[in-house]
């Protein structure tokens, strides 16, 4: 590692030429060592070997979070009464508890990728949840809106309740507009994102209380009333077991075919591609994970009435994951996001509209937070002023960083938010099962966050930002 540090740390002065020349072979050797393994390996065996070299070299990718998740699972499974932690009912419950963290972490990733932070997304999410919930309320005495134009009548469906999809679109647009406002202030007025979103944290909290009015909350019920039940079902609704299996088969087939033929095509053209064994292993892993999820969810977990099937939250989270993964890793916009996060000056000189990218990052951050808000209000059966948006945003940052997204920009993927959010959810769920109070949950989460950031800082110092966009 010493060689790598030399290369990263000290740029020899021009008159240092002889010393530099002597060091050169060493530099090359060190550089070779940290190349992502999938790039040079020709077979599965070589891949595993190269991968272990990279992990020992300090760039572990998602390995720490997968390890942490496994460790948490094993510990809680052993310690929880009657091994209830891994029971199907608890696993589904764990996911439902985690889905807000997961989506918020994916939201925060957009800011973190640029080396920025968005502290406001907890309350922006709350605003999103409230807007959707309000628009499906029946007009009447219980109606929470107390300000100006909204008073008792909701434009443009005057006197009517909005359909669920219109309420969701409105909520997400409101959140995107909030993000655009943040982005505008950050990029055009050049106020640091930390300050702008801290102001947003306070201001949107206030706006939320203002909208909720004296009643202090808005409910969405599971009753088949208007379209409220659909918002309620976002988390609590279940997919029919048979449909779940069919959907899984279709998804694995499509994804597997796309991965297999994509990699095979690249190998044929002599382009950099993973060995066939690795592609097959990835597809097998996806299939196995999918089968496990559907099988677990299809076990009857009801206490009195039968409850079975994959919760809607699973496809919702997977959809967000898929869309943001494609956006970040397969589109020009995503490439520019990574470039701005890695070296904003290089991006600017390459003709990239850096301000535009940064603004869009905050728009997407708040937009995704809006999705998390919908899930939160579904989970809670509504939204009230008790929501702790400050804690939520810290969990979002923690989840993203635990998952492997760098706080320093340029490194991170949507899947990191999913893994990190699951880890935090598992810690919460497990400590709750063991009867620990909230103070222990906070301490445990804090320690895990600290460990994650330390790993991030160490790997950055050691190997540079090696896991790039495609890695």
């Amino acid at each position: 590692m010493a060689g790598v540090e030399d290369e990263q740390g000290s740029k020899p002065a021009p008159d240092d030429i002889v010393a530099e020349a002597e060091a050169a072979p060493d530099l090359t050797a060190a550089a070779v060592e940290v190349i992502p393994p999938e790039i040079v390996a020709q077979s599965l065996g070589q891949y595993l070997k190269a991968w272990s070299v990279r992990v020992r070299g300090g760039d572990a990718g998602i390995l720490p979070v997968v390890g942490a998740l496994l460790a948490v699972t094993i510990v809680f499974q052993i310690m929880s009464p009657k091994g209830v932690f891994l029971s199907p009912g608890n696993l589904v419950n764990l996911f439902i508890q985690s889905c807000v963290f997961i989506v918020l972490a994916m939201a925060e990733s957009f800011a973190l990728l640029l080396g920025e932070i968005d502290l406001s997304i907890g309350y922006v999410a709350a605003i999103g949840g409230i807007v959707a919930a309000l628009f499906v309320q029946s007009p009447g005495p219980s109606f929470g809106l107390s300000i100006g134009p909204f008073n008792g009548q909701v434009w443009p469906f005057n006197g009517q309740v909005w359909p669920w999809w219109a309420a969701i679109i409105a909520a997400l647009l409101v959140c995107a507009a909030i993000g655009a406002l943040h982005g505008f202030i950050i990029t055009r007025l050049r106020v640091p994102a930390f300050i702008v979103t801290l102001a947003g944290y306070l201001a949107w909290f206030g706006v939320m209380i203002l909208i909720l009015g004296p009643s202090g909350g808005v409910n969405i019920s599971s009753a088949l009333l208007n379209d409220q039940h659909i918002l309620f079902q976002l988390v609590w609704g279940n997919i029919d077991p048979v449909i779940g299996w069919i959907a899984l088969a279709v998804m694995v087939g499509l994804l597997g075919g796309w991965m297999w033929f994509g990699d095979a095509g690249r190998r044929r053209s002599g382009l950099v591609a993973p060995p066939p064994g690795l592609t097959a292993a990835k597809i097998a892993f996806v299939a196995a994970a999918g089968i496990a999820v559907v099988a677990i969810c299809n076990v009857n977990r009801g206490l009195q009435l039968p409850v079975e099937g994959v919760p809607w939250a699973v496809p919702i989270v997977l959809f967000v994951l898929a869309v943001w993964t494609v956006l970040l890793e397969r589109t020009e916009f995503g490439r520019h996001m990574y470039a701005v996060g890695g070296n904003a000056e290089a991006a600017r000189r390459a003709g990239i509209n850096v301000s535009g990218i940064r603004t869009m990052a905050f728009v997407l951050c708040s937009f995704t937070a809006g999705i998390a808000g919908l899930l939160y209000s579904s989970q809670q059966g509504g939204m009230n002023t008790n929501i702790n948006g400050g804690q939520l945003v810290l969990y979002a940052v923690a989840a993203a960083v635990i998952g492997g997204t760098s706080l320093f920009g340029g490194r991170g993927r949507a899947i990191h938010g999913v893994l990190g959010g699951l880890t935090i959810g598992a810690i919460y769920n497990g400590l709750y099962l063991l009867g620990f109070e909230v103070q222990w949950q906070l301490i445990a989460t804090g320690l895990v966050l600290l460990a994650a950031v330390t790993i991030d800082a160490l790997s950055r110092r050691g190997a540079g930002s090696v896991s790039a966009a495609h890695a």
Partner: protein
Amino acid sequence: MGVTTYAEGAAGGAPVPGSEALGTAAAGTEPLLKLRGIDKHFGAVQALYQVDLDLPAGQVTGLCGDNGAGKSVLTKCIAGIHQPDHGEMFWDGRPIHIRTPKDAASLGIETVYQDLALADNLDIVQNMFLGRERAHRFLLDEDSMERAAAETLASLHVTTVRSIRQPVATLSGGQRQAVAVAKAVMWNSKLVLLDEPTAALGVAQTKMVLDLVRRLRDHGLAVMVISHNLNDVFEVADRIAILHLGRMVAQDRLAVFDRQSVVDFMTTGGSSREVLASASGPRRD
């Protein structure tokens, strides 16, 4: 044809004529890029004063000058990052205005900056196509970008990288410079500006980069190498232009200079060396 020096005129503070004389500097043909009377100031600091410069195709022009002479500012004016306050630019004889880096790129001017302007977290292909990605509808066309990048690197004989999918952070200084140069020439560029291409490089890596510069010239490109390393300049340049305190004090074929005269021009803005006199002597306006 003589060395054109402006030491006298500049010292007197008078505007410097002499465009006609300079126009013949490139062996009688119109230079690819011609700058005339470029002024640039930042606040109270006059960074460039009435600068004339010719960059002919198929030749390497070495731009020399001490720290603060205005080399980087002049480069950035050509690259569209700064706009000159006054002055004219001609591209193949046509008057042009370069207002943005995009304008420069659309003309075929590419710049390799001193700080390399590569994103460490992206791989070689991603860096080479940065800002000009190829896409099918919304999705990036990685396959065609990877093929094109590989071809460009091969044509420049850059073969030391293990894989073009490795992140730039894992490359050595010389390899990074090679990627930056390859990035610049990938776009059918006609003029490549290299800002201190060998600073912070070892002997072997410097040689590799200088070979690369010669290859660009052999491909018929106009190349400008900004350097205060005279060894490098004398190794690759066909012509030398020397800035001193924002003024172009000398500009001519390599053969009319020797190291001492270049150092004199760089440090004092003038030279009394014999080699100059034998060429034709400083022109006095």
